């Protein structure tokens, strides 16, 4: 299956990645190869098989609505490269 340069650029944008033209070329080929491999599944006859979203035959995994301790804030913020006033600090988000 062919993946176009436009499609690679679109996916890269959604993933917030910037790619050089050479990389676009390379990923178009790689992703095309992966898609082609997955297309092999189309060869399987699935007549009479219901579509499923999960491979494991398990359902209704619930927990009770019971409060447990959260982590302390220091631990939660430990990996944040920048923090301020008990929050993770990120570059200004403009809408």
């Amino acid at each position, binding site marked *: 299956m062919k993946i176009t340069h436009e499609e690679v650029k*679109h996916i890269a944008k959604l993933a917030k990645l910037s790619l050089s033209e050479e990389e676009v070329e390379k990923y178009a080929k790689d992703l095309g190869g992966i898609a082609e491999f997955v297309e092999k599944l189309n060869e399987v006859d699935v007549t009479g098989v219901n579509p499923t979203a999960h491979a494991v035959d398990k359902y209704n995994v619930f927990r009770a609505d019971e*409060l447990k301790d959260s982590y302390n*804030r220091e631990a939660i913020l430990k990996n944040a490269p920048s923090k301020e006033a008990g929050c993770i600090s990120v570059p200004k988000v403009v809408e």
Partner: protein
Amino acid sequence: MREDYEVIIGLEVHAELATKTKIYCSCSTEFGSDPNTHCCPICTGMPGVLPVLNEKVVEYAVKMGLATNCKIARFSKQDRKNYFYPDLPKAYQTSQYDLPLCYEGHVDFKVNGEPKTVGITRIHIEEDAGKLIHDPYTGDTLVDLNRCGVPLIEIVSEPDIRSKDEAIEYMQTLKSILEYLEICDCKMQEGSLRCDVNLSVRKKGETKFGTRTETKNLNSFKAIGRAIEFEIDRQIKELENGGTIYQETRRWDDDKGIGYAMRTKEDAHDYRYFPEPDLAPIVLSDDYVNGIEAALPEMPNVRRERYITELGLPEYDATQITNSKKMAEFFDKAVAKCGNAKLVSNWLMSDVSRKLNESEMEIDNIKFTAEDLGDLITLIDKGTISSAIAKKVFEDMFETGDAPAKIVESKGLVQITDESAIRDLVISVINENEQSVQDFINGKDKAVGFIVGQTMKASKGKANPGIVNKLIMEELNKRKNG
């Protein structure tokens, strides 16, 4: 709005569910805590964690579905909605895509006396995102993840709404139902109930929908109304000037009273939904659904009908009182105490509502109890105090929370019904106002009003007005005929 246009509106309403814990972890959902103190590896999106669905979220969503006449899916699943934003640490929101828990429902309500039905396309469960705070010192954005993972239901309507008033009534109806079910605290100012407005306009007679815009995150009835008016005006002006409406996401600035397009690119809305592999499908039995249905409380519209048919309240009053479960409960308690439903309704609709509005309070913050209001009405019914005095007692109750009997006693407000005492007052007032007496004798009936006023004043408002009137007429006629 111009007569030759029609507006098409659909609402997406988000309601935070009143569970104790988040949707996929056991962190608290409490509002207003210190930032990032209700967080754990699951709700902050650390790699390798395993979310587990809170059973109450399913129960509450099914309750809302049943209360809005939806079908309940016997098989449902959760999906990942992918997008990048700093309030969403996993870079996807767990939501439901093609198999929502509830679908194909409707709600019925009245708009300016006319019946209206709005279809519900679907109700699905999902998680809320964190909160972004602008830091004025550094210019950066601060991220608080306490709200991340708070359970939401999203209620999506059909594009059945045709006016601002219908949109507001629809929202009010959903809010009442959520309150009656006790599944959402509905504090709109805290964002626990909010909505997105999808809106387009078209020339009347046109069968195709126009291009719609989506105004996000409106969190008061006033904002919903104003944002709709603004967007209708904007779209019509744009079309009349030969312009184009773009399908875009917009924000509403309630302080400035303007809406504006967000600067996000259209292709950012390619959410690439796919099934959430970490969460098992939800399979509901008939027993489970029937059990929830059997335990549903009385709904606002049923209570309203009961107030109209059993208690004889006017439809408007019954609607206003039953819109809020707390107001309806207050009403019931007051009526249980005094047995006079009409008078309780009148007090709630007039003095109580006015004072609540003036002080921007909710009924559950009021200082006196429903029983106190019942007692006040009993004092009027028994003739212990006049209606005029009752209003003064009520002002006192509102300020101090004191029981009405205590206020009446300590301020000496008991109504005077003793005829001889009132007659003494009347005679002295008549004697002091010879001019009015002459006016009356000369046929000017207006003079009576003046004497009544003076007598009430002399009794400090405590004389029984009926007796005052009767005795004044007796005394004046004596003078006229004597």
